[in-house]
């Protein structure tokens, strides 16, 4: 069974590229376009990894991250925050709220794919 990834992102083009990349790497990819969508997706079926954009409508990335971490059932969900805000404060905030990693846009597709692969392979 392939590892599942939830992509939470509101920019359609970025969603498209991430979807393309993750599918190509052989993962099961689901999409959520805002915070609420993301949480219901997690509730429906917890993914192995979430690529979580910070600036999303309704409930922002930090909120989603915090909510996921609040539930012990989802403690093994690996969360990678994606953000266009490159400030140290933003990164620290993300890590403090329970994110496992933090990637700044624009990211290297190759690096991101490698990173995701490593994490998910290590899990099994």
């Amino acid at each position, binding site marked *: 069974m392939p590892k599942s990834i939830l992509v939470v992102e*509101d*920019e*359609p*083009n*970025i969603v*498209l*590229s*991430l979807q*393309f*990349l993750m599918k*190509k790497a052989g993962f099961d990819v689901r999409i959520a*376009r*805002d915070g609420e969508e993301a949480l219901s997706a997690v509730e429906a079926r917890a993914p192995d990894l979430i690529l979580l954009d910070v*600036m*999303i*409508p*309704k409930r922002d990335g930090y909120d989603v991250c915090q909510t996921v971490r609040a539930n012990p059932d989802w403690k093994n969900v690996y969360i990678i925050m994606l*953000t*266009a*805000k*490159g*400030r140290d404060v933003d990164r620290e905030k993300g890590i403090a709220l329970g994110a496992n990693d933090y990637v*700044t*846009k*624009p*990211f*290297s*597709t*190759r690096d991101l794919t490698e990173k995701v692969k490593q994490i998910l392979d290590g899990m099994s």
Partner: protein
Amino acid sequence: MSGTVAHLPSWIIIAVALCYVSLLFAIAYYGDKRARAGRSLVANPTIYALSIAVYCTAWTFYGSVGRAVESGFGFLPIYLGPTLMFALGWLVLRKIIRISKLHRITSIADFISSRYGKSHLLGGLVTIIAVVGIMPYISLQLKAVATSFDYLVKYPDLTPPAVAAPAVVGDTALWVTGLMALFSILFGTRHIDATEHHQGMVAAIAFESVVKLVAFLAVGLFVTFGMFDGFGDLFGQALARPDISSLMTMESAGRDWMPLVLLAFLAVIGLPRQFQVTVVENTDEQHLNKAIWLFPLYLLLINLFVLPIALAGMLVLPTGAAGGPAVSPDTFVLALPMAAHQEEIAVLAFLGGLSAATGMVIVETIALSTMICNDLVMPILFKCAWLHLGERRDLSKLLLNIRRGAIVIILGIGYFYFRLIGESYALASIGLVAFAAAAQFAPAVLAGIYWKHATRRAALAGISLGFVIWTYTLLLPSFALSGWLPHSFVDHGPFGWELLMPYALFGLSGFDPVPHSLFWSLFANVGALVMVSLFDRQATIERIQATLFVEVFRQQRPNVAAGYLQETVQVGALRTLAERFLGRERTDEVFTEYAQQRRMLLDANMRADGDLVQFVERRLAGVIGAASARVMVASTFKGQGFGAEEIMQILDETSQVLEYSRQLEQKSHELERATAELKAVNARLTDLDRMKDDFLSTVTHELRTPLTSIRSFSEILHDSPDLDIGERQHFLTIIIRESERLTRLINQVLDLTKIETGRMKWQMTDVDLREVIDHAVTALHQLFDERRIALEVQLPELVPAIRGDRDQLIQLTINLLSNAQKFCPPDVGRVEVGLRIADHEVTVSVADNGPGIPLNEQEAIFEKFHQVRSGQTGNPMGSGLGLAICRGIVEHLGGRIWVRSRPGHGATFFFTVPFAKA
């Protein structure tokens, strides 16, 4: 001719005296005439020095010999003191003269009053003390004249029995008094400007000084070389008489020597008449240079024969039963020539005494009358509102009449005092008593010109205390000796309190009354002056005057507008004021003089500058005294006192210290303010920094988002050579779109930054908005067609030109149209563009039928990066900069931009632009 006439008929003596007095009148008249003609008789250092010799009164002329008989060299300190003061003349007197000229000082009372903040109270006090202290001295002069006349009439009898006081009508003293009053009125109150000098009077006084010196020297030479065989013979005979040989030693003079030197040292600047001739009547500061040595020389000469005459009198004149002289030593100067039957020399001596007495009386009376008028009567009259003095047009007559009245009253009181007390108490000590009163002014004067921190209250305290002690230790005892108070007051103190015995106050015994009084009064006077000053604060006016007085030599010219606000008085008002005191003619002269000096024209409506105000105040001060002048000038200002700020500015060098401390104070205020400002700026900067940080962070975010897509798809394309052509095409299109978005965004950021920082280059022209809208519609036509959104444009036929940048207005319209298009649903979307013309502006509206904007966001959408996301997808609909740029453009053009919307019913954007000015 000598020795043949049996007696001197009184008519001869009267005729000689009358001739002499007539000569005085003539000289004074001539002096005044010359002064009016501009060829001053007295503008001459020798005459100046001689006029100062008014110091030598009848008390010198007759009394010195009397004192010498009593105490040997004890008469000399009275003349050594002034010599020492004149040694300091260049330092002290020159300073007083300079100050008095600059400030138009009219008397010693005026000087002290002016120095201590132009205080009426101080001026009045000094005047009262002067009158009380000097009045007996005037009586003494009258007595001397009367006595010498009576004595001369009895010739050749040298020891006439004491006669009862003659009837008032037949009293020589009365006639003398009347003549002196006449002279003083004629030559002392002719002018209305006291500082214009009484040149006729000065000329007469100088002449009198010559007469009394010549007379005294004549008597001295005759006695020494006529009656004796020169000094050796005279002194040799005296040495042989053990009872008088001690007069040639310090024995009888010793103890009081230094106190009397000090007394005379101080009195020579404190006596009103000395202040009058030395300071007020001084026509040229340069004259002082000669007077510095000539006046002491005069003193030396007039004292040269005092001791020989005294010794000769003791040797030659008949002695009484007790071995003492039956002839009063005070009359030796007359008695010796009479004993030798030298009528001419006797008459000359009489004239010398007469000149000494009249000179003193005239000058003292004029000085006192000026003080009484300026420092006592006028201030009181000004305070009496019911007199409406402030409204009277011409006060110069009133001033002169007050002075004339004062002269008559002073001499009248002097005469009656002489009648009352004259026979009962030895007048010999009255001179010294007057000196002791006058000496009370010296500390305030000296401190006033050397110590800036001496205050008004300190001067008041010092002078008052000194005067009280003087009264207690000298004046009251003299009343006791005259029988007006019980004699026990002197012997045992009041109520038998020996500690308060007036001649041995607090147990200080062993001194003569005058040195004793001088010690205590000066001790209290100086002590109070110093102590009060140390604990007192000066008012602003005091500080200014103190600085002006103490630093007079550092001033190039008087330049203080006395602390008036300068803008508030017109030349005309000052002129009216001056006319009231100086009269019209003098006022014209004064103003003309001022205008000529400055080479300027004075117009009545002109604002009077500080110099003119000062000039007028000084002229008035010459008439009514500094304090009153200040009040009068101040009254022309509309309720203004003086602004400390102005004063500080105009006191240039003189107040450098003040200015410096003020600046320090200001600096510290500035520092505080700067610190507060810095704090505020810092807070604002922190805010700005945070805002800039937010802005940068947002911009970065907005830039990175398209960049992320571009990079991702580029890499995907690069790493996936096996992509089919459709996918490849799709990804490339995304890259292109995102690049375009990026470019647009960068341009918008730059535009906004330019607008916000004011660096946008606006091409301002008259713009036709119809054309602008057409242009924008054309540019977006295709976009609307693609999304099948209806675009309706309704514009009036004629739209007034507005002022603006055409390209920016097109950009603005395009922004609004594309915004509207973005939010409209496809197919049924509808956008309407309208234009309304109001009073002075044009309003453009762009309405859509999209989802509308919630009320709470209607203001915020114009903020930077505020993004309205579409309800369904949550996708941002734009960069978030478009509306911010729109607002920037509209506001720059002087218009407004706003939105009206009901959620669900579309939104309408409005913007206004004002008409171009015709």
